[in-house]
C-alpha cells in the first residue's frame, strides 16, 4: 500500500478530530475528538515505521496508546467533576465568563 495513502487517512482523521474538539459543544464529544487525534498520530507513526523499516515507530505507538488511555481517564474524571458543579456538560454553558 502506498504510504502516502496512510498519511492522507491520518490527516483526514486528525482533521475530523480537531474539528470535533473545536466545534462541538458536548464535552464527551470533545474527549472523543481528542482520542481521534491521538489515533491519527498513531496511524502516521505506524505507516512511517513500516515504510522506513524502522521499528521505533511501533514502539512509539505503544507509548501513545498508553498515554491516550491515561489521559482519557483523567479527562473523564474532570468531566464528572464538571458535571457535579455545573450540572451540565455543555461547554458553552460551563464558562464562568459572561456572554
Amino acid at each position, binding site marked *: 500500500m502506498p504510504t502516502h495513502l496512510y498519511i492522507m487517512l491520518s490527516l483526514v482523521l486528525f482533521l475530523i478530530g*480537531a474539528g470535533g*474538539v*473545536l*466545534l462541538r459543544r458536548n464535552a464527551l464529544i*470533545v474527549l472523543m475528538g481528542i482520542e481521534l487525534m491521538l489515533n491519527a498520530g498513531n496511524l502516521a507513526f505506524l505507516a512511517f515505521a513500516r515504510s522506513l523499516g524502522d521499528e521505533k515507530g511501533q514502539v512509539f505507538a505503544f507509548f501513545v496508546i498508553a498515554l491516550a488511555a491515561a489521559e482519557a481517564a483523567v479527562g473523564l474524571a474532570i468531566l464528572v467533576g464538571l458535571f457535579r458543579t455545573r450540572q451540565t456538560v455543555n*461547554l*458553552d454553558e460551563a*464558562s*464562568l*465568563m459572561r*456572554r
Partner: protein
Amino acid sequence: MLFNLWLIPFLPFLGAATLILFGQAMRRDWVHLVATLAIGASFLVAADAFFFNLPAVAEAGGLRDVLWTWMASGDLTVEVVLRLDVLSGVMCLVITFIGALIHIYSAGYMSHDADYARFFAYLNLFCGSMLVLVLGDSLPVMFVGWEGVGLCSYLLIGFWYSETANADAGKKAFITNRVGDFGFLLGMFLLFYATGTLDIPELLAHARSGAGALVEPFWLGMPLAFWAALFLFIGAAGKSAQIPLYVWLPDAMAGPTPVSALIHAATMVTAGVYMVARMGALYAITPAAMAIVALVGAATALFAAIIGFAQNDFKKVLAYSTVSQLGFMFVGVGVGAYGAGIFHLFTHAFFKAGLFLCAGSVMHAMSGSGDITKMGGLRRKLPWTHGVFWVCWLAICGVPIFSGFFSKDAIVASAFGTHAFSEGLAWVAPTVGVLLLLAALGTAFYMSRLYFLVFTGESRADEHTKAHIHESPIEMVAPLVVLAVGAALGGLLGIPGALFNHPEWNLFFHWLEPAVGPEMHLDHTLELAMIVISIVIAGGGILLAYVFYGGGYRTPAHNFARSFPRFVALVRDKFRVDELYGFLIIRPIRYLAQGLFFLVDRILIDRILVHGVALVVDVFARMARTLQVGDVQRHLAVFGIGLLVLFYLAIKPPVPDDLNVTVEGVHVQVDAGEGSPISRQLIYEFDFDEDGLPDKHGNTPQASFSYEGRGTYRIKMTVLDPRWGSSRSLEKTVSIQ
C-alpha cells in the same frame, strides 16, 4: 548710593511678597505697617538719590545701573537697566510720596474690610511695578512695568470681585489696556527694526542724529519714526485713557477709592505721558506724530469735560476730570513742551489725589453712597474734608496762586507759542489751544458744579443718612491735608519764566532741563495774555456754575434740563460710546467666540477627538474581546491558527536584503549574501532579461550575465526551498550604458 537704585522698586515688591505670603496671619497693624514702611523706605532711597546723588551727574544723563542681562539672542541684547535721571526721579518721588500718603489713608478707609492684607499687597505690588516702569531705561523693562501696573489695576479695580460689576470693570480695564499694549509692542518692534536696539539712550541718540532708518519713508510716505511714535502713543492712549481707549476709566471707579486716587489719578494713568516725555527726542523728529498726540489730547480734554457736566456720581465726575486733565498733559508733550506736561502731571497728582480722597471721605460719611443729587450742605458737617476739597477745587479750576493755575497756564501758553509745527501743520497749534481753553472753561464749570452741589446749600439726603454724617478719622484726614498743601503751593515751583523775565525762577523746569530740554521760550506779551485769559476763564466757569448750582439745583439748571432733555440724557449717558463699542466690536466678537466655542470645543474636541478616539478604541476592543471569552475551544482554535502561522514562517526561505549588483560594461555580477544556511538546501534562480524564464540557477546566490544591448533591465532572484516547495523573490533594476 549709586548701586542702590534697584532698592527703589525692590522694597515695595518685598512688601507685596511678604503680605501675600503671610498677610492673612498677621495682625492688621502689622500689615499696613509693613506696606507703608516699604513704600516709605522706597521714598527715602529715591529722595536721597534725587537730591544728593543726582545733581552731580544730572547733565551726563543721571544715575544708571545695569542689573543683569535679560536676553542676548542673535541681534537682540536686552539688559535690565535702571536709570534715575531728573525725569524719572521726579516721577519716583511723586509715586512714592503720594503712594505713602495713600497707604496711610487706606489704613483708615479699609479698616473694616476682610481682605485687608490682600489690598496692601496689591498696592505695594502696584507701586513696585510703576517704579520699574519709570526707572526702566530700556523699552522691554519699561514694558514689564507697563504690564505690571495694568495687572495691578485689574486686581485692584476688581478687588471686591464678589460683585460681578466690579469684576467686569476690572476686565474692561485690563482688556482695553491690552489693546493699547499691542500698539506699544508694534512700536517697539518698529524701533528695533530701524535701529537694532531697544535701549532708550541709544534710541534717542539715533533719533537725534536725524539720519538712518528712522527717517526713511516706511509706509504711506511717512517715516518709520512717525509710525513708531504713533504706535507707542496708541499704547499711551490705552494706559492714560485717551480717545478712543478711555472707556475703562469711569468704570474703574468700582474699585476702592484709595485705588482710584493712586492709580487712576496720580500714577498709572500718567505712565503714558511719562513715556512720551521720555521718548521726546523721537517725537521731536516727527511733527506729524506730535500733532496727532496734541489733537487727540485736546479732543479728549474737551470731550471728557462735556461728559462731566451731567454725571451724578461723585467719583464719575472725578474720573472724567482725570481723562480731561490727561488730555491737557498730552497736549503739553504733544506741542514739545515736555516740561509743562510733566509739571501738570506733578500738580495734578496732588490735587486729583486730594479730590479722590475727599470723595472717599464724603462717601464714607454718606454711608457709602456717591450720588451727588442726594448730597448738599456738607460744608458744615465735614469741615476738614471741605477745606481740602476747597483747595483742590480751586487748584483744578486754575485759580491763581494755586498749583493748577501755573501748570495749566504753562500748557496752554505753550500750545499757542510753540514752534514745533511748520507750514503744513501750522493750524494744529492754535486749534489745540482753543480746544484747551474751552476744556478749561468746562473744567471750571463741572468742578464747581460738583463743589456747589455737594458742599453748599441744604442737604438733600434722607434722615437716616443725615444722622450718620461724620468727619473722617485722623489717619484719613492727615494725608488729605498734606495733599492740599501740595496742591496749594506746588505751583510756586514752576513760575513761568516769561512772566517776570526771570527764567531761572522756574525751579521745576530748570530741574527737568537735562532730560527734556529747556523751558519753551515764550513771548512776554503772549504769556501775560494767556494768564489774563486763564483767570477770566476760571472765573467765568465758576460763576456759570454758581448761577446754575450755587447752593443746590437752581432754576437755570431746571430750565436747561427741561428745554433739552434728550441732549442732557445723551451727555449723561457719556455719549453712548460704550454702547457703540458694544455694538461694533463686542457683539461680533462675542458671536465669533460663541460660534468657535460650539464648533471647536463642542464638536471638534468633545465629539471628534474625545468620543471619536474612544469609539475607535471600542471597535478594536470589541474585536479583540472575542478572542478571550473563556471558551476553551476558542482558545484552541487560536492555538491552531498560531501553529499554522509559525509553520508558514518556518518554511519560507530566507532572502537577503539587497541584490548587490556590480555593472562592468555589459557584464553584470550579482552577489546576494552568504548562501544557504547549513540546515537547508536552497535553490537560487536568476532571471536577467525579464522573460519570466530563469537564465541561471544554482545553489549559491551568486550569478553573472552579459547583456546584448543597452537599456534598463530588471533582475529577479527567486529563492526556492525544494523540500516544501515555497519560494520568495527579490528584484532590482539596473541600467546598462
